[in-house]
C-alpha cells in the first residue's frame, strides 16, 4: 500500500499542473484515487500517501468549487492527518453500519420497496451479505491500482465538486467505511482499505467475470489500459503522472465507449467497494439491472440503456444523488442527463462527449455546462420544426344560429397554411363551441395518456351563453362573445402549435372537414364542474399514490413549481379581476361626475367658468370612455391570459398525474412479479413440479409486463419532461407578447388622456 502511495504521491506534480485548471480536476481526482489505490497496494507507504493524497485532493477540490471544498477538506483531511482514518472511519462507519444503507437504502428502497428492493440496496446489501466480493475484489484490487482508483476518485470528487455537497462525500464514503471497518487497519483511504479487505476476504477471480458480463467492452478497454498504466506508475512517480493523464485522456477522449465505461467503473467501485466485495457482483448487477434501473431509471431515463452496465452506473449515481436530494442540484441534473443521454442511441454521438466529460471530469462547471446544452438543443430542434411550417388560424364572425334555448354561436375557423399535410392553402369551416370541446375531448383521450399537455378549451359559461341566447344585444353579451371568440382562437392556436397534436388526424379534420359530426356529451366536459371533478379526482389520486418516492428531483421540483405558480396565478387573477372591477367603477363614477359637473356648469353664472365647467364635463365623459376601454383591455389582455394559464397549468398537472399513474401501474406489476417469484420459490421448496411450469409462465408473463410498464413509464416521463419544457417556453413567449400588448393598451390610453387634458387646459386658462 505504501509503495503505491509513494507512487501516488507523485500526484503532487499533478496538482500543480491541475490546480490552476479546473477542467483537469477530474484528472486530479483520478490521481488521488490512484494514489489511494496504489496506497492500498503498497501498505508501507500508506501514511505518506494519505496525507499527500489528501492534500492533492483538497487542492484539486478547491478549484472545483469553493463551497464544496470545505466539507471535502474535512473529510479527506481528517483521515489523512491521522493516517489511521479514525475520523473517516467514524464518519464512514456511522452511515455504513446502518446509515450507509439508511440514506441510500431509504431512498432507494422506497421506490423499489417490494419489487427487488432498491438497486443500491441490492448492490450493497447482497454483495455485503454474501461477502464473496469476487468481482469487486477484482475490480478494486487489480484495476484498483489505478484505473479503478481513478473512477472512484472521480465519483467521490465529482459529487463533491458538482454538488458541492458534503453529503455526497458521506454517501460515497459510507460504503467505503464499511470496508474500512472490516479491515481494522484504518489506513488513510477507505478505498485502500476496501481494496485490501476485498482481496483478503476472497479471491480476485470475479474481476474478469464482472467486467465481462455487463461491461465487457468497457472493461476490456479500460482495464487493459488502466491496469497496465497503474502498475507502471507504481514503479515511477513521474510515470504515474503521465500515465494518469493518459488514462483520463483516453477515457474522456473516447466519449462513447469509455464514457459509459467510466460511469460503470465508478458505479462498480461505489457499490462494490463499499459493499464487502460481494462475490456476486455480477449477479446483483444483472438482477438489479432489470429492477433497480427501472426504479431510478424509469423516472429519469428516456430510452433503453445502451449497456446494462452503463445504466447501472448511471442509476447508482442518481440514487446517490437522490439520497441527498437537498443539495445536489447540479449533480442531479448532470446525472439525469447522463442517464438520458447514454440510453439514447440517437444522441449518443452528440452527447456522449458531454456525459463522458461530466462523468469523468469532476469539474462541476464542465458537467453543468454539458448538461445544460442538452435541453437547449432539444428546444432548438423543436423550434426549428415549428418555424418550418406556417400555420395561421383565426376565428372570426361569431354568429348566432337558431333561436331560443337551442340557439348557439357558430364561429368561422379560417386556416392559412403552407403545410403539405393540408389539402389546400386556405380553408374555412364553421364550428360551434361544443365542437371545440369535442376536439379537446378527443385529443385529451388520446394524448393525455402519453403525458402530453393538451391545451384546454375555454370553460362553458351557462350564464354568458344564456344571455346570448335570450338575445339581449347589450354590451355584456357582446363582450362575452368576443371574449369567448378570442379564447377559442388562442386555444386552437395552442393546439396547432403543438407539434405532436398538429399531427393528430382529429385536429386536421377539425380544421378541414366541412361537415363535422356533432360532438356529443360535451356538456360534462367543460365548465367549472368538470374541472372541479378532475381536480378532485387527481387530488385524491395523488394522495393515494403519495407513496411514490420521487427519485427524480427534476419532476419533484417542477411539480412544486407548477403548484406554486398555479396558486400565484390564481391570486393574480383575482387581483386583476378586482382591478377590472375597480376600473369599471371608476368609469361609472367618472361618468356620474361628468354629468354633475355639466349641471354645475349650467348653473354657474360666470360665463367663462360655466363654459369651462361644461368643457370639463366633456373631458370627464371621455375619461369615462377611456377607463371603460382600459378595463376591457385589463380583462382581455391580462385577466384572460391568466385564466388561460390557470387552465393550462391544470393540464400540466394532469400530465404529471399521468406519469404518476404509469409509475403506479409499473410498481403494481413489479409487486405482482415478486409475488409470482415467491410462489415459484415455494413450489420449488415444496417440490411440486406440476405447478412449477405454470408459475414460471406467470413469471415470464409478468416480467414482460414489468418491462413493458417500465418502458411506458420511461416514455411518459420523457414526454412529460419534454412537454413541460416546451410549455415553459411557450408560456414565456406568450406572456411576453401579452404583456407588451397590454402595456401598449395602457400607453395608448395615457396618450389619449394627455390629448384630452391638453385640449382642456386653454379653456381653464380662459376663465376670467
Amino acid at each position, binding site marked *: 500500500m505504501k509503495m503505491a502511495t509513494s507512487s501516488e504521491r507523485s500526484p503532487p506534480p499533478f496538482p500543480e499542473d491541475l490546480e490552476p485548471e479546473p477542467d483537469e480536476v477530474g484528472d486530479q481526482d483520478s490521481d488521488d484515487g490512484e494514489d489511494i489505490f496504489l496506497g492500498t497496494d503498497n501498505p508501507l507507504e500508506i501514511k505518506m500517501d494519505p496525507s499527500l493524497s489528501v492534500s492533492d485532493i483538497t487542492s484539486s477540490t478547491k478549484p472545483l468549487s469553493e463551497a464544496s471544498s470545505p466539507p471535502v477538506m474535512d473529510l479527506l483531511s481528517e483521515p489523512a492527518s491521522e493516517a489511521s482514518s479514525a475520523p473517516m472511519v467514524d464518519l464512514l462507519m456511522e452511515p455504513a453500519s446502518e446509515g450507509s444503507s439508511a440514506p441510500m437504502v431509504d431512498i432507494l428502497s422506497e421506490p423499489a420497496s417490494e419489487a427487488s428492493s432498491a438497486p443500491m440496496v441490492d448492490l450493497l446489501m447482497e454483495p455485503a451479505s454474501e461477502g464473496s466480493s469476487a468481482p469487486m475484489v477484482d475490480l478494486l484490487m487489480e484495476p484498483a491500482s489505478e484505473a479503478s482508483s481513478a473512477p472512484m476518485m472521480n465519483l467521490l470528487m465529482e459529487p463533491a465538486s458538482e454538488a458541492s455537497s458534503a453529503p455526497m462525500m458521506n454517501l460515497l464514503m459510507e460504503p467505503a467505511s464499511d470496508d474500512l471497518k472490516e479491515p481494522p487497519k484504518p489506513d488513510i483511504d477507505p478505498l485502500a482499505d476496501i481494496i485490501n479487505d476485498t482481496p483478503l476476504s476472497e479471491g480476485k477471480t470475479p474481476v474478469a467475470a464482472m467486467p465481462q458480463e455487463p461491461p465487457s467492452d468497457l472493461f476490456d478497454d479500460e482495464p487493459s489500459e488502466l491496469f497496465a498504466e497503474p502498475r507502471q506508475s507504481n514503479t515511477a512517480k513521474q510515470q504515474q503522472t503521465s500515465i494518469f493523464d493518459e488514462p483520463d485522456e483516453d477515457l474522456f477522449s473516447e466519449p462513447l465507449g469509455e464514457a459509459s465505461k467510466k460511469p460503470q467503473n465508478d458505479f462498480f467501485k461505489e457499490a462494490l467497494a463499499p459493499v464487502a466485495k460481494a462475490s456476486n457482483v455480477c449477479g446483483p448487477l444483472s438482477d438489479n439491472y432489470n429492477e433497480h434501473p427501472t426504479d431510478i431509471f424509469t423516472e429519469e431515463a428516456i430510452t433503453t440503456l445502451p449497456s446494462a452496465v452503463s445504466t447501472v452506473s448511471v442509476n447508482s449515481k442518481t440514487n446517490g444523488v437522490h439520497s441527498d436530494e437537498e443539495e445536489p442540484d447540479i449533480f442531479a441534473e448532470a446525472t439525469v442527463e447522463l442517464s438520458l443521454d447514454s440510453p439514447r442511441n440517437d444522441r449518443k454521438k452528440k452527447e456522449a462527449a458531454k456525459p463522458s466529460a461530466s462523468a469523468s471530469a469532476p469539474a462541476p462547471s464542465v458537467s453543468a455546462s454539458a448538461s445544460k446544452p442538452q435541453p437547449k438543443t432539444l428546444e432548438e430542434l423543436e423550434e426549428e420544426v415549428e418555424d418550418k411550417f406556417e400555420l395561421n388560424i383565426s376565428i372570426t364572425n361569431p354568429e348566432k344560429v337558431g333561436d331560443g334555448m337551442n340557439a348557439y354561436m357558430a364561429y368561422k375557423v379560417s386556416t392559412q397554411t403552407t403545410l403539405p399535410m393540408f389539402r389546400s392553402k386556405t380553408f374555412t369551416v364553421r364550428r360551434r363551441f361544443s365542437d371545440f370541446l369535442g376536439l379537446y375531448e378527443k385529443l385529451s383521450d388520446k394524448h393525455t395518456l402519453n403525458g402530453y399537455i393538451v391545451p384546454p378549451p375555454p370553460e362553458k359559461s351557462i350564464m354568458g351563453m344564456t344571455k346570448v341566447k335570450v338575445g339581449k344585444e347589450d354590451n355584456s353579451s357582446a363582450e362575452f362573445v368576443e371574449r369567448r371568440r378570442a379564447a377559442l382562437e388562442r386555444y386552437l392556436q395552442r393546439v396547432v402549435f403543438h407539434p405532436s397534436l398538429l399531427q393528430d388526424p382529429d385536429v386536421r379534420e377539425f380544421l378541414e372537414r366541412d361537415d363535422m359530426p356533432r360532438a356529443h356529451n360535451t356538456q360534462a366536459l367543460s365548465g367549472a364542474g368538470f374541472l372541479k371533478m378532475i381536480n378532485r379526482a387527481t387530488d385524491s389520486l395523488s394522495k393515494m399514490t403519495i407513496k411514490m418516492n420521487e427519485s427524480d428531483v427534476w419532476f419533484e421540483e417542477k411539480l412544486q413549481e407548477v403548484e406554486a405558480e398555479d396558486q400565484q396565478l390564481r391570486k393574480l387573477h383575482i387581483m386583476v379581476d378586482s382591478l377590472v372591477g375597480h376600473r369599471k367603477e371608476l368609469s361609472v*363614477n367618472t361618468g356620474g361626475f361628468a354629468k354633475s359637473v355639466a349641471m354645475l356648469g349650467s348653473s354657474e353664472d360666470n360665463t367663462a367658468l360655466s363654459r369651462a365647467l361644461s368643457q370639463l364635463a366633456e373631458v370627464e365623459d371621455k375619461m369615462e370612455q377611456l377607463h371603460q376601454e382600459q378595463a376591457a383591455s385589463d380583462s382581455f389582455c391580462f385577466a384572460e391570459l391568466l385564466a388561460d394559464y390557470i387552465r393550462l397549468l391544470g393540464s400540466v398537472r394532469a400530465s404529471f398525474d399521468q406519469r404518476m399513474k404509469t409509475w403506479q401501474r409499473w410498481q403494481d406489476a413489479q409487486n405482482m412479479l415478486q409475488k409470482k417469484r415467491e410462489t415459484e420459490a415455494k413450489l420449488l421448496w415444496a417440490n411440486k413440479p406440476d405447478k412449477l411450469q405454470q408459475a414460471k409462465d406467470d413469471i415470464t408473463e409478468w416480467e414482460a409486463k414489468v418491462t413493458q410498464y417500465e418502458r411506458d413509464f420511461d416514455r411518459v416521463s420523457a414526454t412529460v419532461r419534454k412537454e413541460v419544457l416546451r410549455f415553459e417556453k411557450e408560456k414565456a413567449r406568450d406572456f411576453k407578447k401579452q404583456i407588451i400588448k397590454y402595456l401598449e393598451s395602457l400607453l395608448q390610453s395615457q396618450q389619449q388622456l394627455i390629448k384630452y387634458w391638453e385640449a382642456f387646459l386653454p379653456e381653464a386658462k380662459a376663465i376670467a
Partner: protein
Amino acid sequence: MRQEEQNGGCFQKIANIARLAAQHDDLQRCCTFIIMTSTLDDSEKEKARSVSVDLNNDASLLIDIPDALCERDKVKFTVHTKTTLSSFQKPDFSVPRQHEDFIWLHDALVETEDYAGLIIPPAPPKPDFESPREKMHKLGEGEATMTKEEYTKMKQELEAEYLAVFKKTVQVHEVFLQRLSSHPILSKDRNFQIFLEYDQDLSVRRKNAKETFGSFFKNMVKSADEVIISGIKEVDDFFEQEKTFLLDYSSKIKDSTARAEKMTRSHKNVADDYIHISATLNSLSVDDNTALKKHLEKFADLFEKLRKVEGRVASDEELKLTELFRYYMLDIQAAKDLLYRRARALADYENSNKALDKARLKSKDITQAEEHQQQCLQKFDKLSESGKRELTSFKGRRVVAFRKNLIEMSELEIKHAKNNMALLQGCIELLKSN
C-alpha cells in the same frame, strides 16, 4: 386590541412626521397638499392662497399653523401670528389651539350681531382620521393573506394617506384663520384676537348634550323660519337673483362634491390594486425559473411605479377638484346664511312696518313703533349693503379659485400621464429588446 394600539402608535408616529413635514417648507412643497395655503415663501404663498380663497394680502397680520400634533382623535395646532398691529402686545407669538377652539371662534363670530351682513368663513371640518384608521384596521386583519412586501406597501400607502389627511386638516384650519385675518372687519374682532394671542389653553369646553340639542333646535327653527320668510317678496333684484343662484348652485355643488369624492376614491382603489398586482407578480417571478422571470420582474416593477403615479393622480384629483368643491360647498352655505340673515332682517322690517301701521291705527305707541321700524330698516339696509359687497367678492373669489384649480389639475393630469407614458414606453422597449 394590540393591533389597535399598534395602529395608534403608528399614527402617532405619522403625526410626528407630519409635524416635521410641516416644519420643513421643502417637504411641504413636495407634498401636493398646498390647496389652501401654507408656510411657503411669499410668492408661492400668494399663489397658494389665491387657490381657493381670494385673500387680500395684508402684511399687518400674518397667520400660519407651522406645527400640529395628533393625539388620538385630538389634534393640537400651533397657531403662529406675525403682526404689526398695535392691538397685539407682541409682534410675533404662537399659541396652542384645538379644533374645538376654532369652532368656538366660528360660533362666536356667527352669533355676533354686527357681522350679520358678512359671509362668515365656514368653520373647518372636524379632523377625520376614521377612514385611514379603519383601513389600517382592515389591513391588519388581512395581513395573513398578503405577502410581507404587499403588506408593507399597503401600509406605506395608508400612512401616506393618513399624512395627507393630516396635512389637509391643518390647512383647512389655517385657511379659516387666514380668511379671518384678511377680512377688514373680522380681523379686528376681539374674540379673534384673543384666539390668536391668549397664550394659555383656551379650554373651550365641548358642547354638552343640552347645548348640542339647543343648536340642533336652533337649526330646526332656522330652516322653518327660512320657509316662512321665503314667502316675503324680495325688494332687491340682486338678492333675488343671488338667492336663486345660490340655492341652485348649492345643491349642484353638493352633488358634484359627492361624485368627485366617489370618483377619486375609486381611482385610489385602482392604484391600490396596482400594489397587489405588483406584489403578486413579484412573488410569481420569484418562483419562476424560466426566461419569463426577468419579464415578470420588470412587469412587477412597472406596476409598482405606475401605482405611485396613479396614486398621485388620485390624490391630486382629490385636492384640486374634490376639495375645491367641498370648500365652496361650505362657503356657499355661509353665503346662504348671510342671505337668511338678511331675509330675516327684511321680515323684521316688514313686521315692524305692520306694527307701525297697527300702532298708527290704534294711535298707540307710535313713536316706539316708528323707532323700531327705523331700526329694522337701518339694519336691513346695512345688511343689504354689506351683503352685496360680500357676495360680489365671493363670486370673484370663487371664479379665481376655480380657474386656479382647474388649470393646476389639468397640468397635473398631463404631467402624470406623461410620466406614465414614459414608464410604459421604457418597459415596452425593455421587453421588446429582450
